[in-house]
């Protein structure tokens, strides 16, 4: 089987989500990558070095500059004559583009796979991860998105894929990019961080969220996350959100502070290696999944913890 993997990148570097997707695709067959964007030569060079990659197709064109789904899906469909599976990371780009490709190919997509059981059978979470379904696809070609935390990351070095130009499908003329408001942060990215410090509604305000969560995160070199309750209350921006409707994370250490542990939140972090919970309510559901728990007032505990680390 020949697979085509959508490379997630920021214009300069290949993002970690791509590496897990390469591993998943490698379990299906030969791995070719698609780098779509504008001025993405460096990304293509880096992509060709990823272990297990046989070829990198580069579509370098203004039409792909902002990865508009209307344009990228057209490009992918043109390439799928020669491939058996389109495999994308379950990132916002992957989730935006893959179903459009699937419908154009008349294929039922398999979303957010957690394992490859065989060439046509996969496991995937349903009901916010409260159940795991094993599904078999009857479609001749497969369209798949991959849960990044469920697969090991392919090595960034060791491969020697060839690089070929692709594209020429042009602009579909349906949509245009207006602006982006990218959260700037010196901290690691949530989905690839080794340690995450996450705050909940108990922080009480945006000021307190930053005053208490940020110093601990900085001390640990951690990314900052938040529960949906904290995001909805305006204490933290939306892209901090961890959970069923936010980001799915699986760091080495996840520190949940003032987070009760709603099903919705647990769905996004319960695959973390070690979970540490700090909460004043000893009955909070978060303690049922936490490896280490500390019951108490976070406004007293956090400054002490930060100073003692």
């Amino acid at each position, binding site marked *: 089987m020949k697979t085509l993997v959508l490379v997630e990148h920021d214009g300069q570097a290949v993002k970690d989500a791509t590496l897990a997707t390469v591993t998943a695709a490698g379990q299906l067959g030969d791995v070719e990558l698609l780098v779509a964007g504008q001025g993405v030569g460096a990304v293509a060079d880096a992509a060709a070095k990823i272990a297990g990659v046989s070829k990198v197709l580069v579509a370098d064109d203004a039409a792909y500059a*902002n990865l*508009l789904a*209307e344009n990228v899906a057209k490009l992918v469909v043109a390439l799928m004559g020669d491939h058996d599976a389109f495999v994308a990371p379950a990132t*916002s*780009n992957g*989730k*935006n*583009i893959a*179903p*459009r490709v*699937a*419908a154009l190919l*008349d294929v*039922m*997509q*398999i*979303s957010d796979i957690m394992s490859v059981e065989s060439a046509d059978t996969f496991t995937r*979470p*349903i*009901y*916010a*991860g*409260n*159940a*795991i*379904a*094993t*599904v*078999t*696809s009857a479609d001749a070609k497969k369209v798949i998105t991959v849960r990044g935390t469920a697969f090991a990351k392919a090595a960034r070095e060791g491969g020697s894929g060839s690089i070929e130009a692709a594209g020429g499908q042009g602009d579909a003329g349906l*949509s*245009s*990019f207006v*602006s*982006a*408001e*990218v*959260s700037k942060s010196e901290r690691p990215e949530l989905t690839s961080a080794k340690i995450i410090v996450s705050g909940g509604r108990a922080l009480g305000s945006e000021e307190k969220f930053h005053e208490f969560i940020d110093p601990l995160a900085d001390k*640990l070199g951690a990314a900052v996350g938040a529960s*949906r309750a904290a995001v*909805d209350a305006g204490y933290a*921006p*939306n*892209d901090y959100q961890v959970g*069923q*409707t936010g*980001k799915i994370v699986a760091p080495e250490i996840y520190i949940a502070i003032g987070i009760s542990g709603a099903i919705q939140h647990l769905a996004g972090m*319960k695959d973390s290696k*070690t979970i540490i919970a700090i909460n004043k309510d*000893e009955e909070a559901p978060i303690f049922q*999944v*936490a*490896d*280490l*728990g*500390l019951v108490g007032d976070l406004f007293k*505990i956090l400054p*002490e*913890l930060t100073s*003692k680390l």
Partner: protein
Amino acid sequence: MKVLVPVKRVLDYNVKPRVKSDGTGVDLANVKMSMNPFDEIAVEEAIRLKEKGAATEIIAVSIGEQKSQETLRTALAMGADRAILVVADFSIEPLAVAKLLKAIVDEEQPGLVILGKQAIDDDSNQTGQMLAALLGWSQGTFASKVEINGDQVAVTREVDGGLETVSLKMPAIVTTDLRLNEPRYATLPNIMKAKSKPLAQKTPADYGVDVTPRLTTVKVVEPAKRQAGVKVADVDALVAKLKEMGVAA
């Protein structure tokens, strides 16, 4: 301009799903069912467009069992004008749903279709994008803001790194994210009024759509459970544990 809003009847989001012991799925017998929360946001957005004068008629559509009528009545009570139920007695996959919706769009000619970004039962996150593909329309997924300007709609999207705004040529597809709006509750008079609003019943065959599933569910199991760990007494004990893990010096 007509606005089409597809809605799905799902297990209520406050109910903890229980996997059936025979591994065939999640138990939906005698549990509370509600409108998919993202679809409620879609209905609300359509109503707000109508209140602003940008939309003239809101058509709610559901594809599923007869009981989905209740979900459509909820949409009508919130403020949709009429409803269409495509009756299907088994679970219809997103691709087939998109094909049915395309047939309805061809008939109704809406300027905008607003859908929830995903249903909280199968968590597929596909139908809106697929419908956009089949229609050859533009798509604004995971929307947190929707603004119509003439024949363009500006959609602010919630993406991994923050927010992104795209301008779409209409007709267009929009899928909703949580922060787009806060859906209203239906008032009692409006619930009564909704009972007399038109609700048409159709079947997939009426639209000539083959809804045969492409995926077979082999089994459904509970995820591996995490064991609760230990509670530490104070910050010093926590710091000691963190040092053991090599986190702190």
